[in-house]
């Protein structure tokens, strides 16, 4: 009997369980571990402050796991890769032959001085990368009618790196519709030198910010949040005043990854970016946000990677060369307000470009351009996520990125 152990039953772990259960025979046992039984639709966190009911975001993890997979609901303490076993928080021991780490990334408000430990936390200082945070922010927005609103993210990498921009566009739209836009001063604060990391998208998104009269504070490396004077303070001495601060803190990997010595300084596991096999441990693969691959930490990446991962995993188990190479493909709908969204499609080597998607000239989606159909695509994705993506069904988008329809810069 061979044993596969999957750590984490989120987007990546659930997909891995579903895909591998159909591929591995009866001589394989599959066990998946997570601390609770709540699977969150994380893209929903963006909408909870505006309109999405909080209950709609959560479903039970085990409802999305196939028969023949054991679900262990327990905290993980440590991985012992040399002896190939995992220690749970209650001391229980789970042996494995092969391990998939899919424990994601987590926002760390404790890493910004004055955030989680400040008097204004969840009062005037908010985030929306947890359900609790989104709900608190929803309530804060309901009481906020005038003043200075800062939308900020501290440092890369964060999950869904476009979400702070999306929130900015959505909150601008909210106050515009309410007729309060002239009373609410909005600034987007970023450690990057523009609206986005890559030139073509940065220009497009920067233009959108200007059109909507949203200020941009770039190259802002946050030092701390001053709760007494209500300022966001950068290392170079800039102090931005706020009446409401939405700040996405830095992320790290799971605590057990850090405690096991498997992660880099942020707790992300170094992997071969094309095969997703851990650099130092051939019996460990890492799927989703938990690895250090240089692309977005996003569900779409986990999805595209999962498809290739399965073939590579099966080859590795059989002692054969791994046949597939992941290109870092990411595909993100970016809400831009006005019931429109942009679509980004990119990979390790190709920045987000303009064009049509998925078919050249036909679309129906347009890349890097706010359209209503992109917005509808974003909304439809919620059902796609639960019904197709998690069960590991094929989506009509290739795992590796295609240049079809894209305009070269």
């Amino acid at each position: 009997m061979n044993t596969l152990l999957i750590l984490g039953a989120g987007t990546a772990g659930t997909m891995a369980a579903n895909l591998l259960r159909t591929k591995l025979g009866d001589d394989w046992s599959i066990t998946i571990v997570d601390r609770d039984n709540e699977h969150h639709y994380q893209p929903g966190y963006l909408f909870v402050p505006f309109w999405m009911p909080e209950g709609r975001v959560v479903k039970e993890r085990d409802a999305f796991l196939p028969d023949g997979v054991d679900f262990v609901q327990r905290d993980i303490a440590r991985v012992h890769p040399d002896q190939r076993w995992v220690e749970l928080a209650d001391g229980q021991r789970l042996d494995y032959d092969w391990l998939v780490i899919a424990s994601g990334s987590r926002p760390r408000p404790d890493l910004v001085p004055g955030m989680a430990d400040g008097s204004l936390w969840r009062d005037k200082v908010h985030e929306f990368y947890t359900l609790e945070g989104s709900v608190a922010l929803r309530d804060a927005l309901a009481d906020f009618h005038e003043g200075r609103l800062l939308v900020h993210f501290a440092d890369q990498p964060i999950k869904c790196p476009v979400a702070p921009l999306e929130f900015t566009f959505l909150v601008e739209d909210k106050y515009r519709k309410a007729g309060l836009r002239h009373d609410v001063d909005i600034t987007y604060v970023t450690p990057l030198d523009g609206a986005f990391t890559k030139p073509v998208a940065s220009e497009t998104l920067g233009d959108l910010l200007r059109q909507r009269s949203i200020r941009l504070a770039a190259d802002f490396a946050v030092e701390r949040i001053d709760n007494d004077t209500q300022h966001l303070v950068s290392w170079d001495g800039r102090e931005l005043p706020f009446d409401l601060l939405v700040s996405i803190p830095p992320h790290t990997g799971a605590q057990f990854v850090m405690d096991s010595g498997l992660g880099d300084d942020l707790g992300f596991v170094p992997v071969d970016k094309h095969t997703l096999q851990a650099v130092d441990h051939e019996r460990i693969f890492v799927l989703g946000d938990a690895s250090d691959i240089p692309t977005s930490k996003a569900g779409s990446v986990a999805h595209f990677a999962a498809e290739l991962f399965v073939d590579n995993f099966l080859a590795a188990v059989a002692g054969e060369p791994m046949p597939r190479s992941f290109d870092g493909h990411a595909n993100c709908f970016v809400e831009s307000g006005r019931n429109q969204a942009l679509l980004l499609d990119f990979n390790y080597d190709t920045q987000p470009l303009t064009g049509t998607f998925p078919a050249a000239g036909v679309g129906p989606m347009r890349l890097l351009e706010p359209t209503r159909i992109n917005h509808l695509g974003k909304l439809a994705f919620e059902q796609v996520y639960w019904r197709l993506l998690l069960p590991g069904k094929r989506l009509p988008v290739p795992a590796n990125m295609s240049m079809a329809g894209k305009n070269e810069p």
Partner: protein
Amino acid sequence: MPTNTLNGHTFTVDDEGFFTDPDQWSPELAADMAELIGTELDDAHMAPLEFMRSDAAEHGATPTLRRMHATGGFDIKELYRLYPGKPVKKMAWLAGLPKPTGCV
């Protein structure tokens, strides 16, 4: 790719002037470049550049300010004193590394 020449050294750069090949870098070249931005490269200025180069060689990416602090042990305020304004960008440029964008 554009090419820059400085005091007889030739190196390829991206559109913003950052090195595309770290192997074309040398400490002498860095000293010449530092003069262009009014900085004298003494030991205090060189230490973070050397960390950046070894860290980038090992991990394949220009380290962020946070990493300079967490892994390199540098004091962030001190880095701002040495390289006012945009320390990571200036240091990456002087160290012959790509612009530190982090990941998308």
